[in-house]
């Protein structure tokens, strides 16, 4: 079915510019007919559209803060325009490019390691035959999601302390010394990403486990008859079933490349790893929220999201071409 879809879509895409007036009219009539026939579906959409309009589109005028010198006394409309001043300020900062580089490196590394692991975990869990062990493992791996960032970071620094940390002790025979992991910028990305994997792999695998439950057991039975091993069946049956989900999630994930949550980074930061750990979000947090520079942080946020949105559109287009799955 997937294969059949692809050329069809391509055709309709390439056909678009060459429409004759009659075809246009015919299509318009068809659209009208479909709209009329599916009026109920629009009703299904109505609550979401109203909600999004009220809570997301109405406040959108606040974006202008990025181009103004916001003063809460004057209000959003009354604050004076400053044009691109905040953007220029950011790019003139000697550290701007380091910040962008650090953000991208952390984000890229997070996707590279953090994205596939929940998928692998879900596939492994799905292939288990012992239901009790499977449910137990699922529940356990899901739990770290509920540990607060403050406590998580507290545990990380304690476990990695060169004086008393047990991870340092465990690694000592292999590395030959007690390494001060938190004191060296080169370990920062790894600490951040691996602790994230620990905390959210189980949580992230839930959606894949749900998607895998849609796979028909008959497909597996047929494959077993053909002599396919369990390992092969993962590749030819399970994986293809969750590919659409994987692609959608990957597209969304790539669309947040410029965003790294600041809370955990901020807590993991110290003067020794600052060279690697200062990212755009922590920098704007320090300037923007701590020092009340609302305009500046809005401007940087806007810059980030414009980049994110562009990446999303590109990746989405690419995914559409490659697999037929896409956001719109």
């Amino acid at each position, binding site marked *: 079915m997937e294969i059949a879809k692809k050329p069809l879509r391509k055709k309709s895409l390439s056909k678009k510019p060459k429409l004759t007036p009659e075809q246009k009219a015919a299509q318009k009539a068809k659209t009208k007919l479909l709209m009329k026939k599916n009026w109920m579906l629009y009703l299904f959409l109505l609550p979401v559209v109203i909600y999004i309009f009220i809570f997301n589109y109405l406040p959108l005028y606040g974006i202008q803060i990025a181009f103004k010198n916001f003063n809460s006394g004057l209000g959003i409309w009354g604050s004076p325009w400053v044009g691109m001043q905040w953007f220029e300020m950011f790019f003139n900062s000697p550290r701007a490019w380091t910040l962008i580089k650090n953000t991208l490196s952390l984000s890229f590394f997070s996707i590279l390691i953090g994205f596939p692991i929940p998928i692998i975990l879900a596939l492994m869990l799905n292939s288990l035959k012992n239901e009790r062990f499977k449910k137990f493992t699922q529940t356990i791996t899901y*739990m770290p999601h509920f540990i607060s960032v403050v406590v998580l970071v507290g545990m990380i620094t304690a476990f990695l302390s060169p004086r008393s940390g047990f991870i340092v002790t465990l690694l000592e025979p292999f590395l030959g010394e007690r390494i001060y992991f938190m004191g060296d910028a080169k370990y920062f990305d790894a600490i951040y990403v691996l602790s994230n994997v620990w905390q959210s792999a189980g949580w992230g695998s839930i959606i894949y486990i749900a998607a895998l439950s849609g796979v028909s057991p008959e497909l597996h039975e047929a494959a077993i008859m053909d002599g396919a091993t369990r390992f092969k069946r993962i590749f030819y049956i399970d994986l293809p079933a969750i590919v659409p989900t994987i692609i959608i999630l990957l597209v969304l994930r790539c669309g947040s490349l410029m965003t790294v949550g600041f809370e955990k980074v901020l807590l993991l930061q110290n003067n020794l790893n600052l060279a690697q750990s200062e990212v755009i979000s922590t920098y704007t947090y320090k300037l923007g929220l701590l020092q009340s520079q609302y305009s500046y942080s809005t401007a940087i946020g806007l810059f980030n999201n414009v980049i994110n949105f562009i990446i999303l559109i590109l990746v989405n287009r690419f995914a559409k071409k490659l697999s037929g799955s896409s956001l719109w």
Partner: protein
Amino acid sequence: MTQANSNKIKDSKADKIFYAIIYIILAIVLVIVIYPLYFVVVASFSDPVYVNSGEILLFPKGVTFVGYQKILEDTRIWQGYFNTIIYAVGGTVFGLAVCIPAGYALSRKDLPYRGVVMALLVFTMYFSGGLIPTYLVVHNIGLMGTRILMIIMGTISVYNIILIRSFFSSSIPTELQESAEIDGCSNEKFFTSIALPLSKPIIAVIALYIAVAQWNAYFAPMIYLSDSSKYPLQLVLREILAQTNTGTEITDPEALEQLNTMAEVIKYGVIIVSSLPVICIYPLIQKYFVKGVMVGALKG
């Protein structure tokens, strides 16, 4: 036609190796995940001095229940629990009722302008007006400080709608819908009697997502609620933990020193007290991830 049947077939040698490897990997994963969880539990009733000095490895030291006592004797906690349950249950019901039909509608390829709607939704994931204008909107529609706001705020997420849409479009074949249409089945009928029963797994997942998000929410309540009797659990806990150390000017060093020790005593217990109920939901959700729910429908 179920698991039991396929189990009867003997595993091949390759499969045996495969299972052995999987079990080994998962056992390692379990150890890695369980240890820090175990640490949190142990730390929650140990003297914070030992917790922070790295002396606790396997067994609690300086056993004390002061942390739990401090948390549980606070009456605000119970009110917070009550509120959180209202917001979580209400929010989940509301979120599902709105998002599931919307996700379904967007999955229908024969819906004109669905791409436009989709793009408009995705746009809001990236561009927002920020806190102040949102606050003004909430203020102007008269929902400030209400429980209703806590139930609806944040329970409709575009991310979830996208997941729902992609589930429907990949698991409900267009042919099925087309043939139903030929049989004279209306959209709403098809949705309620065919699409919904087929989508239990995604409903379960989205319900979990919304419930957990509501359970952990503290920012919106902090901004929009002023009546502390409406505070959800997480906000109450934040107030108890109160990381007040934000200003650069230190005005009361004695109080500051004391706060730090207080926070240490309760911070591990707080995790257990606040997350135990949500952890318990998961097994309930799991039972909807059963294999083979679609088989019958597809053949029919």
